[in-house]
């Protein structure tokens, strides 16, 4: 277990950001981009393809998983190039270093709410360059100066004339021109798409069943597989009845895979039946015999090793918080389809992390990158789980073994029990308040498993996992004596990226702790925060907005309570308030929530609102009832009956305010998730006087109605 000082951590975090060395290929390099990487004569650089009929395809470098990235990135390109929005189609990019997000430090990946933030500059330049090329091509056709050619809605217009040329008519000629290195960009006042609520491009196909998710892939001669892995993490297959499985109609083959076994059949259900007949037994494993109460004991031991800070102040708050492991539980179960032959390898996969898929495809197929193709499908929910490649590897192994295309589909039970979970974590605070009730010292000890350790073992080289401490390390409140200690705890349960990562628990800890401080001091929790945010206008403004919208301070009905919280993550600042009522026997009703976000710059208000609504609801679901617990080394939960997801019934109305501050672009996807748990817990305290310090709330007898 490692301890560290805040100063050292801050230094390391900074150096980690500067030494990633993945700036390759992300600078806008005109000549480089002109090379027909996508392989079509209609390509104008790597981002845009225009067919003679004017159909304009944008190559989207991020995975579409519901965040609306196909639309928001298309808006940036279309606005700059003055495309006709009705003619836009999208394609997800192939694996190529040209498509790496400038914000990424791990290659081609869609994560960390960074797509718009990272691609804003390169895509504006690409759109502007193509527009200029189209104007130049028109100018050549008409033998006039380029200044006399203007672009609008998919056409080049000739000055003082009724003549016009469609983009489709001149695309081929434009494609032969050099890509200008420094094309003029539009002024923000001239945007006709950016900043407007635009309907998402992908939505119609998602209302008629035609959208192709990974699980929908069908290939000639394709077979269907399902897998089972040791329920004790790291365990091995001990025995199985292959003959029994082979008796099941449609079963083709039984194949051992890492830590588990697969049944391949001619239909997914038959593969599942084959698996049942197989009667697999496992033994061993790193978590053998592990119980949730032991994990909690380890976390407490880690906190004890850090010790509490003795605080001398007018009043001292001494509190302890706890959160469980959580599953991403994306609705589309893990799946992947691979077709490995002697000299080619194709993978169809709902992935957030193309680069890692390529790596695993190279490893299993033993082929070169040029022989491998990764096709990204629509993703039925990512939330971080689809940055992993366990399911990709399985499909590759099986296809290689069978010599045919294989689609692996996990059953829900496998998805819940074979996760990379949000780490179970605990946090203690000793907060000293002065005689006016404001904190003068803030001592926070955090114990949490490390997510990064898996990628950067041994952990000693950076002493701390910044993903575990994110959200706890830079609180916005003015507190003179601020200390954070972190201890890494490893129980053997796999941990990974869960929608908003460290902020998903640290925001609950911090924003509950500050609320407790306010109440201990006898202050209004919103005004208390406001006071501690003196001079921080962006934070104050979002808080002010939710105060205004929720009519904070109004008289509310008996049994009702309003709670508030504030958090900065992914470069955006957001605040939320919720009104709840509590009744007898733990009954809880969520009436209405208000969210305000300052994400710097606004591309598509429609999708920003959707992400705020959805992210907050996702966070509420977790806070209310989700938990992964261990019994005898295995995950106890198995499906939605015991891993309950919030449904329409019980979910609150949510109103969203977007503040365009003109600051640097911030992320959106994960920003509302961390707010849900503390806002809710603070509202429950306000309504009932009951302070909830551990999640989920269902463990405290709270029932949503």
């Amino acid at each position: 277990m490692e301890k560290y000082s805040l100063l050292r951590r801050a230094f390391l975090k900074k150096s980690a950001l500067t030494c990633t060395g993945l700036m390759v290929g992300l600078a806008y390099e005109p000549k480089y981009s002109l090379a027909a990487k996508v392989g079509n004569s209609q390509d104008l650089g790597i981002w845009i393809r225009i067919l003679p009929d004017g159909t304009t395809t944008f190559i989207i470098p991020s995975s579409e998983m519901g965040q609306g990235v196909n639309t928001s990135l298309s808006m940036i390109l279309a606005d700059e190039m003055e495309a006709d929005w009705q003619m836009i189609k999208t394609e997800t990019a192939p694996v190529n270093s040209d498509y790496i997000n400038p914000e990424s430090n791990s290659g081609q990946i869609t994560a960390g709410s960074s797509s718009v933030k990272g691609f804003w500059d390169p895509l504006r330049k690409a759109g502007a360059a193509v527009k200029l090329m189209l104007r130049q091509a028109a100018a050549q056709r008409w033998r006039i100066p380029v200044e006399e050619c203007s672009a609008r809605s998919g056409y080049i217009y000739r000055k003082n004339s009724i003549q016009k040329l469609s983009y489709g008519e001149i695309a081929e000629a434009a494609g032969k021109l050099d890509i200008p290195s420094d094309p003029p960009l539009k002024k923000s006042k001239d945007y006709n798409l950016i900043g407007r609520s635009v309907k998402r491009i992908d939505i119609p196909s998602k209302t008629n069943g035609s959208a192709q998710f990974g699980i929908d892939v069908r290939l000639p001669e394709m077979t269907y597989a399902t897998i089972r892995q040791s329920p004790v993490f790291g365990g091995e297959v001990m025995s199985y009845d292959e003959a029994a499985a082979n008796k099941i109609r449609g079963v083709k083959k039984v194949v051992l895979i890492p830590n588990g076994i697969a049944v391949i059949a001619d239909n997914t259900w038959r593969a599942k039946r084959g698996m049942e007949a197989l009667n697999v037994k496992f033994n061993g494993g790193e978590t053998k015999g592990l119980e949730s109460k032991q994990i909690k004991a380890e976390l407490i031991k880690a906190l004890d090793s850090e010790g509490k800070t003795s605080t001398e102040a007018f009043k001292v708050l001494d509190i302890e918080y706890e959160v469980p492991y959580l599953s991403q539980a994306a609705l589309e179960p893990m799946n992947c389809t691979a077709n490995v032959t002697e000299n080619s390898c194709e993978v169809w996969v709902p992935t957030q992390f193309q680069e890692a898929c390529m790596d695993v495809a190279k490893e299993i197929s033993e082929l070169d990158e040029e022989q491998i193709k990764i096709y990204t499908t629509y993703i039925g929910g990512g939330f971080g789980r689809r940055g992993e490649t366990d399911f990709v590897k399985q499909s590759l192994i099986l296809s290689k073994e069978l010599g045919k295309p294989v689609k692996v589909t996990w059953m829900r039970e496998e998805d819940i029990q074979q996760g990379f979970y949000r780490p179970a974590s605990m946090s203690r605070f000793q907060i000293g308040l002065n005689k006016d009730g404001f904190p003068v010292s803030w001592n926070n000890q955090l114990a949490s498993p490390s997510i990064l350790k898996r990628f950067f073992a041994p952990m000693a080289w950076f002493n701390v996992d910044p993903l575990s401490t994110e959200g706890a390390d830079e609180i916005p409140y003015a507190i003179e004596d601020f200390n954070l200690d972190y201890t890494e705890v490893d129980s053997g349960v796999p941990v990974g990226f869960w929608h908003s990562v460290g902020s998903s628990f640290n925001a609950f800890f911090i924003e509950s702790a500050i609320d407790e401080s306010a109440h201990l001091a006898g202050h209004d929790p919103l005004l208390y925060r406001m006071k501690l945010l003196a001079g921080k206008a962006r934070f104050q403004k979002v808080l002010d907005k939710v105060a205004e919208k929720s009519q904070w301070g109004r008289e509310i009905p008996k049994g009702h309570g309003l709670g508030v919280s504030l958090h900065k993550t992914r470069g955006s600042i957001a605040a939320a308030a919720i009104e709840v009522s509590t009744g007898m026997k733990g009954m809880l009703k969520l009436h209405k929530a208000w969210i305000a976000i300052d994400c710097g710059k606004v591309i598509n208000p429609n999708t920003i609102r959707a992400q705020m609504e959805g992210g907050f609801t996702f966070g509420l679901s977790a806070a209310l009832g989700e938990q992964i617990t261990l019994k005898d080394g295995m995950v106890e939960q198995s499906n939605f009956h015991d891993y309950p997801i919030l449904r329409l019934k019980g979910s609150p109305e949510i109103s969203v305010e977007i503040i365009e501050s003109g600051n640097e672009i911030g992320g959106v996807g994960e920003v509302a998730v961390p707010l849900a748990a503390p806002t809710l817990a603070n509202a429950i305290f306000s309504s009932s006087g009951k302070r909830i310090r551990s999640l989920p709330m269902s463990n405290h007898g709270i029932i949503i109605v």
Partner: protein
Amino acid sequence: MPLLKINGTTHQLDVEDEMPLLWVLRDELGMTGTKFGCGIGQCGACTVHVNGEAVRSCSLPVFSVQGKEIITIEGLGENHPVQKAWIEEQVPQCGYCISGQIMATSALLSKNLKPSESEIENKISNICRCGNYVRLRKAIRRSAKLIQKQGA
């Protein structure tokens, strides 16, 4: 050899009687609009209509729906008022649960154009992991209005 009537077409199938309708649709017939989410009738991603009722096809053995009128998302068409409402309200996020939401809503509204809030909450119990319930609620109401308008 079950005989199934799906979206107006009769299919003669050589499958086990116990095979759930979901896997007949998806793997045998290639109608992948109906989604697999949990396999135990919890999430509603696999919702289809059988004789006008919304049912969860993952838990429905194919022999039990022989001769009945089965409608899937593909059979609802492209211009159903519920689909229009979903587009207008921009309901889908990842989109995976949407076929089920639309099938559940269209069945509910085909019987009752003015369901109470609690009827809606009890009948539309589909899981949306992205958390689109704010828009779902609006879209159900809008669907009812569009259907009424269409009927008028």
